[in-house]
């Protein structure tokens, strides 16, 4: 197990450096002057340009610039946003709200996905299964912002069940509507995953053994089938997190949830590139980390994974 953990972490190192180098390259080696872009149409003072160049180390060779950037990341220095606030402070303020939203969304998605996926698999080919598959297909196809607008218009504006935007009041109870929207952007894939892995598990020998030794269905399904069917859900958590990153940016923007995604959304629509880059860097760092954790959990749950040579 220790060898597996070590190998997985060693594999992540080049990926981490590659990904940050790629983002950095995209932003600062592209045609166009990033400093001039900061000022839009205005012509800035040449002395100010020089000062900013020195501040962002743009007068140095590319690889030195990257070195400053990467050492900054290790000191948790992700730069300064447009309003002059360090990005890490903005993160500290907004992250708890996004975490709350993400936890609610994943909880909604997974509870629904596991229950519906299980019953779909048990009644494979039946009416319930087919209806649920069609609904899942529609949710796969619905772009997140269309889903958000539909929910906002029908559930909030028309029916008045929720407030259309969240704003400053963002306790658990206030986040229901964006959490439902974000949850349903994850739900469909998870439900289909549960369904297909349950169908796989139902055909396994140990399930037949469990039945043939006289165990009742009420014990076989939760203990022998469901538990084994959930392993693919865990390996899918990395992908879920990727979907949540994009989803949170759009959902928090539309429902005005003051979280990380909304800060990124505002930075994008205002064209504040350094802030966008800082936040994307944070996302990628967290994404690499989550994927390592997911792989380690997978290795814990399924011993076969640990012994496969790469």
């Amino acid at each position, binding site marked *: 197990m220790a060898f597996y953990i070590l190998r997985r972490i060693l*594999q992540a190192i*080049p*990926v981490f450096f*590659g*990904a940050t180098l*790629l*983002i950095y390259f*995209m*932003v600062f080696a*592209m*045609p*166009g002057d*990033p400093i001039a*872009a900061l000022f839009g149409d205005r012509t800035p003072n040449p002395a100010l340009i020089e000062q900013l160049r020195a501040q962002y180390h743009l007068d140095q060779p590319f690889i030195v610039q990257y070195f400053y950037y990467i050492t900054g990341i290790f000191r948790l220095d992700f730069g300064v946003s447009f309003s002059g606030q360090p990005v890490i402070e903005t993160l500290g303020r907004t992250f708890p709200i996004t975490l709350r939203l993400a936890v609610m969304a994943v909880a909604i998605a997974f509870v629904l996905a596991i229950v519906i996926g299980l019953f779909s698999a048990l009644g*494979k*080919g039946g009416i319930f299964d087919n209806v649920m598959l069609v609904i899942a*297909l*529609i949710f*796969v*196809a*619905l*772009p*997140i*912002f*269309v889903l958000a*607008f*539909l929910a*906002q*218009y029908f559930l909030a*504006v028309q029916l008045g069940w929720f407030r259309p935007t969240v704003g400053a009041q963002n306790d658990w109870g206030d986040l229901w509507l964006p959490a439902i929207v974000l949850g349903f952007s994850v739900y469909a894939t998870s439900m289909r995953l549960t369904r*297909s892995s349950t*169908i*796989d598990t139902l055909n396994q020998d140990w399930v037949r053994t469990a039945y043939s030794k006289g165990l009742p269905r009420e014990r076989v399904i939760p203990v022998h089938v469901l538990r084994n069917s959930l392993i693919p859900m865990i390996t899918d958590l990395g992908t879920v997190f*990727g979907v949540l*990153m*994009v989803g949170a*940016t*759009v959902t928090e*923007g*539309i429902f005005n949830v003051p979280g990380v995604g909304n800060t990124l*959304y505002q930075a*994008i*629509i205002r*064209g504040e*590139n350094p802030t*966008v*880059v800082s936040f*994307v860097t944070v*996302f*990628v760092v967290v*994404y*690499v980390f989550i*994927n390592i954790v997911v792989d380690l959990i997978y290795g814990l749950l399924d011993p076969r994974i640990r012994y496969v040579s790469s």
Partner: protein
Amino acid sequence: MSRPDAQVPHYVAPIDTTSVPVDVVRIDAKRSNLWLDAWRDLRARPMFWVSAAFVLLVVVVSVWPGLFTNVAPNNDCQLANSNGGPASGHPLGFTRQGCDVYSRIVWGTRTSVIVGLLATIISTVVGIVMGAFAGFYGGWLDSLLSRIGDIFFTIPYIIAAIVVMSVIPVRNEVVLALAIGAFAWASTARIMRAEVLRVKQSDFVMGAEAIGLSRFRTMLSHVLPNAMAPVIVVATLSLAGAIVAESVLSFLGVGLGGSIMSWGNDISQAQTSIRTAPMALFWPSLALTLTVLAFITLGELLRDAVDPKARAQR
């Protein structure tokens, strides 16, 4: 001195004169291969015909938009009509700028199709090349290409495209498709690599090498054609993904320039009047969702048709 085994009485099996059942090749049987089987499976499914017809409609509208509307692109916008309801000749009403919603949807179809197709071609070609070389040659090349793939896989392609598009001053269909395609190839490469690894074990690959074909020729004419099925499925699905990506990026304001007619831009512009004129938001959203739904349905039916395991799970 006689050999010791000469004294051992041998058992000699009697010659069996009854005819042995042999697997005969039935020459009158239907021809069968992966694609023929897939086609037989597909054509029996009504959903295939519905989604294929819708995809065909989308393609026709994008090639000949003039057949479906008389309003010229970006024309006929009068602020007097702002957020107006349906009128004669304008079945879906007007946007906030007073433009005809229906004609904008028709002209915007081309944008979605161009971006979707270009991005998919880029990501599929790059993915095939990277995956095929990694899987077929193996060794250090595999390690190198797979690590590069890991790096691109780590950055969700919409997030990467946000970064690229917020830096690049030019915002047209080609640039957007490049931004999406350049970051969406990693999953295609992984699937291609796995499939090439599988096909490489086949006897016909050994045969091709035995008759003296070069490694590269073997890969090109024997391995690749037999490893295409999963990639074609993924390409259909990533076409839907690219169309969604275009609209999400345009919605965020880092996609296509505001003057380009696209569903994403229309949805983005209509969101401010969601309370007063929800239909201007609804129609482009519906067009977008139905198109994505058609491509996804087609892709998934195709996947089920070429993959017996998926077929068994239905």
